[in-house]
């Protein structure tokens, strides 16, 4: 179908205010946070902003009948090109559909539409002393729909895991325009094992199976206390060893973060006043719960970490905790600023490896950086083996871009070699699909069959995942 005709039809269907059709407007939908789309932005044929299940159904039916691609989009903070129309089509921006439909405090659950921002939801839930624990670094901007589609997690995944276990049920508009509900969407139960678990299938499906239009989320009571321990190591291997020992001591911190020497330098360069101790690695442990349990766990961590660390500091003072945590939270920022004529890029940024291999992997990444002459800042969620590597380059220098793409490829291969995966939380999208066979082998064939069963015309977000 001609682009002009598509635009006309959509405008008729939804009304002008829910459709973008001007070429200039459409260009703004050619990127997300991925390095890929910074290099190669891809402009869609139209953008729609549905605000009801019926809106979504209408657009889906139209696309189904005319064989037009549909690309769901939340806030566009994904780092994989997942929400980009790389093969053309209509982008469905769900971020303006942001109703919290019901907070059922009694049954500890909430129903939202896909565009609700993660931080906004938790601000509302806080009024009931509840929270939805996964906490991506993009909490203030990403949508719940995007989180479900990517199965996002964050700093506190060590204890609270990812989005998936909290999703009780979904409403999904299928590629042919039919609406299904999965799992406990219609029930108010917390447990539900009835039927094949389509909820689990949809969570992490990255927009290739259907449009998620309603989400029932399980929430849990908000802990009343927290504390942070910082342990400083002269030997990189001591960091993962300490993590394992803390677990063995029966403690499950809410988060365990690592900064290696590259990250420590970056932070100190960027904000000298934070003044992190120079070391091979710094670990930050966050524990939460009630005041006595937090204090007890803090003391255990102090004792265990003290065996290997040069220094350990434990604090429950809010001011000091903010300072310590700032060391971690500014790392991503500091990485962007270590080179005045360059920036960090989001590529090869999300590998996940066994905790026991973290030290080896960090060393290997460092030598890859040397091999390609590229500075890399390493930090991440060591508690679950999810390492964020931030290559720092001048993205407008083609020669450097070429080099970094080779480096990124080697980082991905390294992850697989270490018994890990190319992505721990950000997803596959367009940027990591080429590793599907390597990571999953024959299983990819079954994934494709599932995809075909849901989307026989192949119109849902093509060019992603595998």
């Amino acid at each position, binding site marked *: 179908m001609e682009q002009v005709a598509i635009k006309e039809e959509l405008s008729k269907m939804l009304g002008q205010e829910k459709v973008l059709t001007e070429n200039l407007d459409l260009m703004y939908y050619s990127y997300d946070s991925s390095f890929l789309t910074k290099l190669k932005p891809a402009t869609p044929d139209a953008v729609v902003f549905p605000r009801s299940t019926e809106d979504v159904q209408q657009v889906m039916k139209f696309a189904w009948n005319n064989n037009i691609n549909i690309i769901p989009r939340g806030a566009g903070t994904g780092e994989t090109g997942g929400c980009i129309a790389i093969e053309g089509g209509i982008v469905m921006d769900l971020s303006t559909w942001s109703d919290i439909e019901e907070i059922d405090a009694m049954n500890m659950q909430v129903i939202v539409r896909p565009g609700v921002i993660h931080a906004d939801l938790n601000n509302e839930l806080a009024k009931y002393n509840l929270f939805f624990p996964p906490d991506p670094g993009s909490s203030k901007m990403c949508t719940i729909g995007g989180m479900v589609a990517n199965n996002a997690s964050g700093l506190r995944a060590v204890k609270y895991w990812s989005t998936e276990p909290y999703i009780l049920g979904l409403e999904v508009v299928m590629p042919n325009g039919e609406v299904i509900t999965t799992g406990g969407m219609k029930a108010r139960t917390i447990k539900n094992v009835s039927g094949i678990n389509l909820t689990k299938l949809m969570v992490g499906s990255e927009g290739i199976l259907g449009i998620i239009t309603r989400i029932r989320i399980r929430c849990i009571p908000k802990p009343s206390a927290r504390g942070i321990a910082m342990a400083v190591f002269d030997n990189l291997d001591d960091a993962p060893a300490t993590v394992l020992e803390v677990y063995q001591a029966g403690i499950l911190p809410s988060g365990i973060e690592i900064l290696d020497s590259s990250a420590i330098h970056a932070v100190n360069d960027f904000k000298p006043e934070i003044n992190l101790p120079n070391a091979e690695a710094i670990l930050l442990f966050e524990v939460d719960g009630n005041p006595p349990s937090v204090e007890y766990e803090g003391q255990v961590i102090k004792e265990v970490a003290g065996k290997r660390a040069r220094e350990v500091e434990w604090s429950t003072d809010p001011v000091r905790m903010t300072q310590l945590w700032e060391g971690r939270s500014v790392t991503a920022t500091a990485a962007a600023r270590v080179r005045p004529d360059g*920036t960090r*890029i989001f590529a090869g940024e999300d590998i996940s490896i066994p905790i026991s291999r973290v030290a080896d992997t960090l060393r290997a990444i460092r030598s890859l950086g040397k091999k390609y002459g590229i500075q890399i800042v390493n930090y991440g969620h060591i508690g679950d083996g999810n390492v964020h590597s931030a290559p720092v380059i001048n993205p407008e220098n083609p020669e450097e871009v070429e080099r970094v793409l080779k480096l990124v490829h080697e980082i991905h291969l390294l992850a697989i070699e270490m018994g890990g995966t190319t992505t721990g939380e950000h997803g596959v999208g367009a940027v990591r699909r080429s590793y599907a066979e390597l990571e999953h082998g024959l299983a990819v064939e079954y994934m494709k069959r599932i995809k075909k069963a849901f989307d026989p015309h192949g119109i849902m977000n093509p060019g992603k995942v595998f």
Partner: protein
Amino acid sequence: MEFKELPPVKEQIMKCVRCGKCRSVCPVFAEVGNETAAPRGHVFMVQMLRDGKVEPDKAVYDKLSACLMCETCSVNCPSGIDVHELNAAARSYIYEKNPSIAKEFIFDTMWTNPGFLKASTHFMGGLQKLGLQKIARDMGLTRILPGDLPEAEKILTNIPTKSAKTCLPEINKTVGPKKYTIGYFLGCATDLLSPEVAKATIDVLTRNGCEVIIPPGIKCCGLPHIANGKMDTARKLAAHNIKLFNSYNFDYVITDCASCSAALSRKNMEFLFKGLNIEDQAYDFSSRVMDLTSFLINVIDIQIPEVKYDKKVKVTYHDPCHLANAQGITREPRELLKRIPGIEFIEMNNANSCCGGSGTYSVTHYKMSMKILDKKMDNVMETGADKLVTCCPSCMMQLKYGVRRHNWKCQVVHPVVLVSECYQNALIEQGENR
């Protein structure tokens, strides 16, 4: 300097990782909800402009000019990008290539060009009486001015007929021993819209050891011109003011207007003059510039006379973007308020979110401006304040309209006016006791 060679364009565009953090803080994006209004969208579009992927035409200008220039995105950007500077540079580039499209600018010229205004001291009064529409019609501007004009006109009511400059002497001697010689940068908005602020500034400064000089021939600080794509004019205006003030040997150059102090700041001087001949003079000038409240707190450490009061007055404070975002000044105005006897200070929610006024934005983008203003007013009204204080005459105009629009009984006032009132009341009390 060529557009591509401008420091922000050359150095900062590539730093944007499109993380979207700026989406979560932009007041315009919060209303529009689509990427065309997101700060990172502006960065992207400036890049497209730089790379020749889009033409420097009206359509692109309109997209970029939806931005308030409130700088909230810039202070929150992890990569340290001055999104607003990129935007300003791009608008200026488009304007250069395509002068007819910067319609807003004509309106700006009308109310920020001293020539225009001086020609008739009653210009603003006249403007009011006749109505903007008529003036615009007479000047043949109706075709190019925004359609919201009849609505926007309401914002401009109650403009004083006499400007501050016509009432204040050039040299204002100190009351008591002299400590500092101050150059008072009397900006257009204070001069024309809030002359009472200028009077209070002079009153408070002269009572605190300052001789205050208002150099004749001060021109607009240039901020509206930057916002409306006239970088060249902004440069000329700034150069004029730099030379004017540098010809004295002031200890400080003080302004009571947040936009003026932002425009005269080191950062903005870098934006305008980096790499040009006048650079050093500009930095010398900006090193003396200080916002009035910072001066009163940090330099003078002002002690306000104790005066009697019947009942405490509830006061809340709105952070002007050009003070809080552009200069990081948030503590001093609050500290000043807390030193005023008889004040109960109540912090409002989101005190640092933009009021939607942003110079001429309320006229050029009336509807959007009102949505942002209404959000601001909700936060103000929640405090139940009797007085709404802010340090920018342009915000004051917008907030006064907000108060009227919501039928709210609340006085919009600059803090220096409250301080000056204390001095006046103390004098009266002394007289009574004598």
